[in-house]
């Protein structure tokens, strides 16, 4: 096992975060605060409580998920896309490092960033509303699993993308809408019955629901179902990454 190699990639990626600290940490924190001000006060003044939880507190898990999903995808995809774009990927491919180790370095770094970011947002939210965490271990489990899964997803997007446009289009046009429609800001039980059914096809619903359960013990769908959905998506991403490396897709002619 080439641990030095994994460490080199991991450090490289974390240093990149430090260089782009504004983009990677400050801006998500600012936008989260804005969501609180706008949604929390505008909607919160009309909806007092959902499932017995104050509206401000209710949206916290969804807000964290929103950032986790978009940031994991964006970070991991950029991380592997950039060497492909500049050509420095030759180094990765010619080094005595396995595909698993390459993924560990890139996805590990992207997931770490998301986890740290999630905790920062949680701390920021705590300034606005009182948050209780009913199942802290499960909360961390959901945080880590989601970060890893969507970092893998981002890695795939980064390998697939041929240009910066494609790179941005997925987080922007797929991940963000799914997160918004996945019950970040409302309980899906508040929707008309038809739309509740439609929403169940949105994988993000399960993530947000499970994550919210770890905070407040209430969920739109069963926790087991939530976990199974994450596991399913994680295996799917792992399978695709495995296929990418086995065939050299877009990496090795």
């Amino acid at each position, binding site marked *: 096992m*080439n*641990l*030095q*190699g994994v*460490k*080199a*990639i991991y*450090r*490289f990626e974390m*240093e*990149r975060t430090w*260089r782009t600290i504004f983009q990677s940490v400050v801006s998500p924190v600012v936008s989260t605060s804005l969501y609180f001000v706008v949604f929390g006060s505008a909607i919160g003044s009309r909806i007092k409580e959902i499932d017995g939880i104050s509206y401000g507190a209710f949206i916290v898990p969804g807000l964290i998920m929103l950032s986790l999903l978009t940031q994991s995808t964006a970070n991991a995809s950029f991380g592997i896309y950039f*060497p492909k774009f*500049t*050509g*420095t990927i*030759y*180094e*990765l*491919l*010619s*080094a*005595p*490092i*396995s595909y698993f180790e390459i993924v560990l370095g890139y996805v590990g770094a992207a997931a770490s960033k998301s986890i740290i970011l999630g905790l920062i947002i949680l701390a920021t939210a705590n300034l606005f509303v009182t948050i209780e965490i009913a199942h802290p271990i499960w909360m961390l489990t959901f945080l880590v699993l989601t970060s890893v899964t969507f970092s893998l997803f981002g890695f795939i997007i980064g390998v697939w993308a041929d240009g910066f446009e494609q790179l941005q289009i997925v987080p922007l046009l797929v991940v963000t809408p799914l997160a918004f429609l996945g019950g970040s800001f409302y309980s899906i039980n508040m929707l008309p019955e038809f739309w509740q059914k439609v929403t169940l096809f949105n994988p993000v619903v399960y993530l947000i629901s499970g994550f919210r359960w770890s905070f407040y013990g209430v969920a739109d769908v069963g926790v087991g179902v939530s976990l199974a959905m994450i596991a399913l998506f994680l295996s799917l991403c792992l399978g695709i990454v495995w296929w990418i490396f086995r065939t*050299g897709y877009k990496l*090795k*002619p």
Partner: protein
Amino acid sequence: MQSVISIKNLSKTYADGFQALKDVSLEIEDSEILALLGPNGAGKTTLISIVCGLVNPSSGSVEVSGHDIISDYRAARELIGLVPQELTTDAFQTVWQTVSFTRGLFGKPAKPSYIEKILRDLSLWDKKDNILMTLSGGMKRRVLIAKALSHEPRILFLDEPTAGVDVELRKDMWDVVRGLRASGVTIILTTHYIEEAEQMADRIGIINKGELVLVAQKAELMRKLGQKQLALHLREPLERLPGGLDDYELELSSDGRELTYLYSTQGKRTGVRGLLSALQGAGVEFKDLDTKQRSLEDIFVTLVKEQS
């Protein structure tokens, strides 16, 4: 001589159906400098890329110090450093960071004293904290060499190392290369400059259209194919070659004032003496003569012509 890289029947057909390598077999010897010489598009980069793991071979096999490049890629790649043809560097790292990064990627623990040594050898020491993006092309080339050497490889690939490089860097680079060779590192360089191969290499391999046309010791290549050319400047122009000279393959210039004779310096008899007396016998007088060694350039042109 023991071979450090053993390439057997290697072929590569790219996805678009283009065959860039055709059944190439090559043994690269330990501690030699091998120059792969060939025109643009010959397949030099493709060959190097397969050995280094950047391109999948279509068929054939490569072993590096006995390690198969696919089934035993870790052991094989640890031994190899690659300086790519294109100037590809990260943008935001410093020189020091990027060289250390490569060392880590190759699984070696940090060794600042060694990194310092290569940076000094490549005149990069005063640039060690500069951001890569701000460096000139020549400096980036130096950085790529430093990266390739960062993990103390036993084999170094230099793909067109002097393309667009200034005289000073060329000199520094050859100093480094000679130093490496002296310490037992095997060096494979590709070039389309014949002088470079002639100057640096122990052996030369010629590639054209995906085929390895020939591999030989440089001196042997020069000897084997190094014909000399004797030019005789005649006192009186001739209309045609007089009889009695048929044994010699002579060529008469169109104005009839110059006779040229190609001979091999390798054979015991060059035939020059015989030719001169035959000329005297035929009553052909000349006022001057000169001989010329054929350069690698000529040899190369001939070989490539013969092939096509």
